[in-house]
């Protein structure tokens, strides 16, 4: 079957959040985008608008993007009130103009959350996520120190579930969607991936305690079980991982408080 040819084009009105810098006031600016192919992506539509602005010597709309295939997590943006736009399970860059009616008014805003300050227009600073990762989002294995890969069998179900969590692209839509700007879905995806795998066990307690502490320090809120995060997640990561992390956190807190510690742990020659 040949794709329906798209001789008919659409036109839309954009209300775009423009903000010159982190400490500058922002405002909505209206742009018209006309004669668009419905097969064009939303970002390609913005390219067209920007090309016109640039050739007129005007400041193009700054927006974050890179891979344009939904995997790098760079694109952000709230489209008509929804992080990553109207469709479930896709990122902004995978949103196509066929999703909008001819004549639609489309509102584009940056992710809004205190730990993600606006840098310019639709671009926010999400470096807080890297800091949370640094607190514990890893399995400590020095290069060269690994045993043969098949010496650590992993049950297929555990590997599959770990992969569901590992699919997180670190975009921050979960934070933007949450009324508390909580990063629980993001953190629980990493914690969940490693706690499901045998390789992740030695650092399991330390990891969950450190990552949660870092998340709190960076100003992310707590979870109040509205699940907006998983609804907005372009990889459909389940909020079940939040519950899993809460259990892990509780158990780790008890173990840390109660289990005996070696007095000589840091000594020795």
């Amino acid at each position: 079957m040949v794709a329906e040819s798209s001789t008919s084009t659409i036109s839309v009105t954009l209300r775009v959040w423009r903000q010159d810098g982190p400490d500058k006031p922002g405002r909505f600016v209206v742009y018209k985008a006309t004669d668009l192919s419905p097969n064009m992506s939303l970002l390609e539509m913005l390219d067209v608008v920007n090309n016109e602005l640039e050739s007129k010597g005007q400041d193009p709309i700054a927006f974050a993007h890179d891979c344009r295939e939904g995997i790098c997590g760079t694109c952000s943006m709230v489209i008509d009130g929804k992080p990553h736009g109207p469709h479930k399970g896709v990122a902004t860059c995978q949103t196509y103009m066929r999703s909008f009616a001819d004549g639609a008014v489309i509102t584009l805003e940056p992710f809004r959350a205190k730990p993600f300050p606006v840098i310019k227009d639709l671009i926010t600073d999400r470096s807080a996520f890297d800091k949370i990762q640094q607190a514990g989002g890893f399995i400590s294995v020095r290069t060269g120190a690994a045993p043969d890969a098949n010496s650590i069998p992993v049950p297929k179900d555990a590997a599959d579930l770990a992969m569901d969590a590992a699919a997180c692209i670190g975009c921050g839509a979960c934070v933007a969607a949450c009324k508390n700007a909580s990063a629980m879905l993001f953190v629980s995806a990493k914690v969940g991936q490693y706690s499901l795998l045998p390789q992740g066990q030695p650092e399991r307690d330390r990891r969950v305690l450190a990552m949660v502490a870092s998340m709190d320090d960076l100003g992310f809120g707590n979870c109040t079980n509205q699940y907006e995060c998983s609804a907005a997640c372009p990889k459909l990561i389940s909020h079940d991982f939040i519950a899993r992390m809460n259990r892990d956190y509780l158990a780790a807190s008890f173990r840390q408080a109660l289990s005996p510690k070696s007095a000589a742990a840091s000594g020795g020659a």
Partner: protein
Amino acid sequence: MAKLESKIPSGPLADKWRKHKAEIKLVNPANKRKYEIIVVGAGLAGASAAATLSELGYKVKCFVFHDSPRRAHSIAAQGGINAAKNYQNDGDSVFRLFYDTIKGGDYRSREANVHRLAEVSVNIIDQCAAQGVPFAREYGGLLANRSFGGAQVSRTFYARGQTGQQLLLGAYSALMKMAGQGAVEIFPNEEMSDLVIVDGQAKGIITRNLNTGEVRRWSADAVVLATGGYGNVFNLSTYARGSNATAIWRAYRRGACFANPCYTQIHPTCIPVSGDYQSKLTLMSESLRNDGRIWVPKKKEDCKKDPAQIAEEDRDYYLERIYPSFGNLAPRDVSSRAAKRMCDEGRGVGETGLGVYLDFADAISRFGEAGVRERYGNLFDIYHEITNENAYKTPMRIFPAVHYTMGGLWVDYNLMSNVPGLFVLGEANFSDHGANRLGASALMQGLGDGYFVIPYTIGDYLASQKPGSRPKTDRPEFSQAEDNVRGISKRLLAIDGKEPVAHFHKRLGKILWDGCGMARTKASLEKALQEIPALREEFWKNLKVPGSADNLNQALERANRVADFLELGELLCLDALEREESCGGHFREEHQYPDGECKRDDENFAHVAAWEFQGEGKKPLRNTEPLNYETVKMSVRSYK
């Protein structure tokens, strides 16, 4: 004339790497912290190198133009990573992986480098599994494999259709661990804009912060570039929009040789172009060719029909017909050219006639729709998002697209360029894939270079540098380089013409695709070599970049990158013109066998062409490094 010493160790092929490791100089542990290493890029090669070098005790600074090291385009690799584990007991070995890669590269890569790559492939899988990379597993808990093009064994490890993502996040996690300990400093949003050379050695870089516009100087004892390939010179490609050649190009302009720029890979299975507004092309993983069958109608008049209405006997499964022993798993260059030939014959499908079918009807009848969904579900979803078509019901339409560049900066066996102290890893270098890369080998090379090669070989250079001898950034070489960076931006902003950057990038891409794409001729290349300088001139007269260089200015970022592409594109065509043979991804129509296969000229072209910058407006110098094959016999590459 540049000195190209490959430093390939003597002795039998299989012992070279072991022997080299035993013989090269080491830096003692107490001295390592006195050396600073700059790593540019944090894809598979950069992140694994930065993490590992810091584990060894070196002070590492890692620069990325992305907002986080996790965004590098390695993340988009779908299908898998090769390793000679032989877990399938199907006859795989280090030698076989080596041989397949050499043959896949059409005998234009270095034997010693490729053998080393095959050797370390097994360590990569161990390392990644230990990091918690959720590879696909069998029910018994052991690792699963699948097959990829150009191989007759199953040696590809994978994590659904997101292998690159998972491997990159593994390397990123190692990098984050070291950053948390303060052993690596990470500089996001910081684009390398020039290389600083002091007394003939790479001793620093100049960066521009993309958020603030600030231009800064950084000095180091060695500089490692892991900045990826230059496929975006074609504008439309499967690369990320931000992928660029600025770091390697500006290093080239400082004297690093650029090797085999004409070796570009056109991937056979991408979603066809749909319109002029298009910003990128999306790959459909090669793994689909395990179970999908590629065909076009036998009769031209059937091309516009609904494929369901085309009877089985009216379909030409051309890869199975022409290459019976590899069939749909023929290597990328071979499959891409075959698709082009079918379309040139007028048997292409889809609106534009530039497409072939990739059909899963047989696989669905074998495994059921659920079985196909489990293997490739995410790819079918991507296809649906982009085309609005359901590939479970109707065959996918695919067409080749620019995907990878085998060429890159010239490096020796230690991965050091001809500029001492400048190391180049991953896709940014030229060394391992010859004239064509096999599927699932890019991830292997990126991680191999970063985890298991550079940590050893960089010591050989650093041991010859006095600890603490790196220059201060107030030296004239640094100010000159900084002025150069500021000057380029200033000139771009001052043009004040009429056309946006995208206008020129599109036109450059079209010139290259037509003149130096899947098939090249003397005439098409000469035409491109006329058109590119003319376009460049127009660019510098009629470009419009609004705003200033003192803050976030995405138009200026793109203008800087496209300015470099406009120079690199010319070198690509020049290299293609002077390489009077066909090999791998470089197909010169003048040099082919009657059946349309590549005709190499081993007598005159069994060498690496390493281009050396000679100054503005001057023709670059073509240096050569002969390729001496000690183990494998160069032969006609056949997949029939």
